[in-house]
């Protein structure tokens, strides 16, 4: 389908007949109230018009916080760009590229949000769990307009666990145990890995945290070292 400059087709109330995600109009992954707020906002009208996956990166670079709506239901640029991504429906490769690039953490967060909304359960787990090792700081805008500090791994944990993140009611994700039982997933190996075993063996209390053999920071700041096999396995 040709690239549409605006989201008119997708936001049409009369019906949508394009490609669907989870058997529904992709824009319907966000709630109607939120969608209306986004479409009425200045950011959407000015900045999110006629952008494609490449120019979206320019917008994403200017992002300084994540969040849902704040103040009097004003949507954040994060949320507006999410809707734009849902309209664009970029390919899987592009999304993963967004996710794994290291320069712009807010773009990674955006991609993670998109993954959680659109990928199927198995892929959500396999894609997002490696990000749990990334402890870069994020700024989150709260409902009352103030800022809060959070971390990328915390954000991803919320995506995997909570029901409502960033003004969106997330699709229900089956718990990991069920997927493990079925066999689609393997048991999760925490990035702490070996350290955990040490802790268990010693049976000491959790106050002593050792910066063990795996503890050296990676070349990129903020990443915990994890086994390469994980990464290569998960990035498809």
């Amino acid at each position: 389908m040709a690239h549409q400059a605006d989201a008119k087709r997708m936001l049409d109330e009369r019906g949508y007949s394009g490609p669907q995600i989870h058997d529904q109009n992709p824009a319907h992954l966000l709630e109607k109230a939120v969608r209306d707020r986004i479409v009425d906002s200045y950011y959407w009208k000015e900045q999110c018009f006629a952008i494609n996956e490449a120019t979206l990166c320019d917008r994403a670079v200017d992002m300084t916080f994540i969040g849902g709506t704040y103040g009097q239901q004003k949507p954040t640029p994060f949320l507006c760009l999410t809707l734009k991504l849902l309209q664009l429906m970029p390919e899987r490769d592009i999304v993963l590229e967004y996710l794994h690039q290291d320069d712009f953490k807010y773009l990674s967060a955006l991609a993670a949000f998109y993954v959680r909304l659109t990928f199927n359960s198995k892929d959500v787990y396999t894609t997002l769990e490696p990000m749990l090792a990334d402890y870069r700081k994020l700024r989150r805008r709260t409902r009352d307009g103030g800022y809060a500090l959070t971390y990328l791994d915390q954000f991803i944990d919320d995506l995997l666990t909570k029901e409502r993140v960033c003004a969106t009611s997330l699709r229900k994700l089956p718990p990991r145990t069920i997927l493990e039982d079925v066999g689609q997933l393997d048991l999760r190996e925490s990035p702490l890995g070996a350290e955990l075993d040490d802790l268990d063996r010693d049976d000491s209390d959790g106050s002593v945290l050792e910066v063990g053999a795996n503890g050296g920071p990676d070349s990129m700041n903020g990443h915990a070292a994890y086994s390469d096999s994980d990464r290569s396995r998960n990035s498809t």
Partner: protein
Amino acid sequence: MASKRMTANPVKPARYRPGKPVAEDPSSDEEDESDEEQEIVTQPPPKATSFPSDARKVAANLGKVDLHNAKTQALRGEEAKNQAERVARAIADEGFVTEESEEERNSESESESDGSEESEEEESSSEDEPAPKLLRPTFIKKDQRKEGVHVAEVKDEDDRWAEEEARRKEKADSMIQEQLEKDAAARAAGKKDWDDDEVQEVEQVDDTDGLDPETERAAWKLRELRRVKREREAIELAEKEREEIERRRNLSAEERDAEDKEFLEAQKEEREGRGKMSYMQKYFHKGAFFQDDAAAEGLANRDLMGSRIADDVTNRELLPQYMQIRDMTKLGRKGRTKYKDLKSEDTGRWGEEAGRGPKRDGVDERFMPDRKGGGERSGANAAPIGERRKAPDGAPTGPSAHRPGGGDRYQPQVEDGRPSRRERSYSRTPSPSRRRRRSYSRTPPRRRDRRRSPSYSRSPSPRRERYRNDAPRRKRSRSHHDHHSSDKRQRVEAY
């Protein structure tokens, strides 16, 4: 001269008032003008106003109007003409300046310049102030003149105003420019968001990484451990559930029942262990929504109804009836009615004063009533009455006779002085004292005297009266008839 009118309305021509001199023609007054002109010229109006020139001219001349002066009307046109002439002359001459003509020229020049904005206060004040003293025009030698006040002023009006406008615009532009630059700088510095309208001085939340790698890593480890712990606990919980299910399955049926019984017993004990509500205690529901929060604070199983509030009344029955309510905060509020039934809510004193007559005790003996014991009837009504005459047997009876209970039941006042039972019992059946003396025929006894045969049976044949014994005939037991009135007190017969 102060204007007679304080309004800005145009002056209408003077009305004709009989007996007063009429406004004369302008042509006849020309010779007087030169003299009177000078008297009438007032302080010049302000240099720039928002009024159009015509209005201003009129307004300027308003102060010079004297309604009662018949020549005013003629003067106005003349004056304008003269001023115009003077200005033209001054411009042409360039040298001849008089103070008076200066004033006049000022007033004329401002009428020429249109649209200039200045305060109108000067104008109004000019009308109010008295006319300044006018000097006779004198010639000033060229070296003694002070130049620059005359013609330049004519042109300065417009220029000055234009200058001011330009200045103001510049200022506004520069302010806007400043603001924009500030915004751009703030955005460039990353402190302000894309369309953030409020300028935030400092972003308190700092999201730069790498400020303190060890601390950050340690924090991350903590979070990761917590997540792992959470997962493990979930797994354990699931395991326990499964175990429990397995175990129960392996038990036999009786053991299962025993366990269930135990559980139920425990539940019951818990429920009974809670205190009971006192009499009329306010009911508090524990709420359906914040159960998780309550559990987190350890308030899951508290005993709401069994506990007593320190402020609450311990024994509500000791309070007056009005204050016996569940919720003492509603005491005295409007709309609180605790309606029980009509009889208890009734505040009337029915029949209490009916029997009382005038005061009979502390009264002179001459005024005491004749009969003691308070007869029911007084005066002419106190006469003894005979029995009521009934229709003879066999007479056709009216519809009231067929009513349940026997129809008409009027009973006269008992004369033995006792308060008649009739007053108290509102039932239709006759009083028991009567009952016992009679046979239990269906018709109620009408009167106490025994002139008539006791059984007032309805059957016309007299033969039957002898064998009348209704006792075995009664289908229903007689015990119900004993309590005719709702009065369940024991009745003691006087005789």
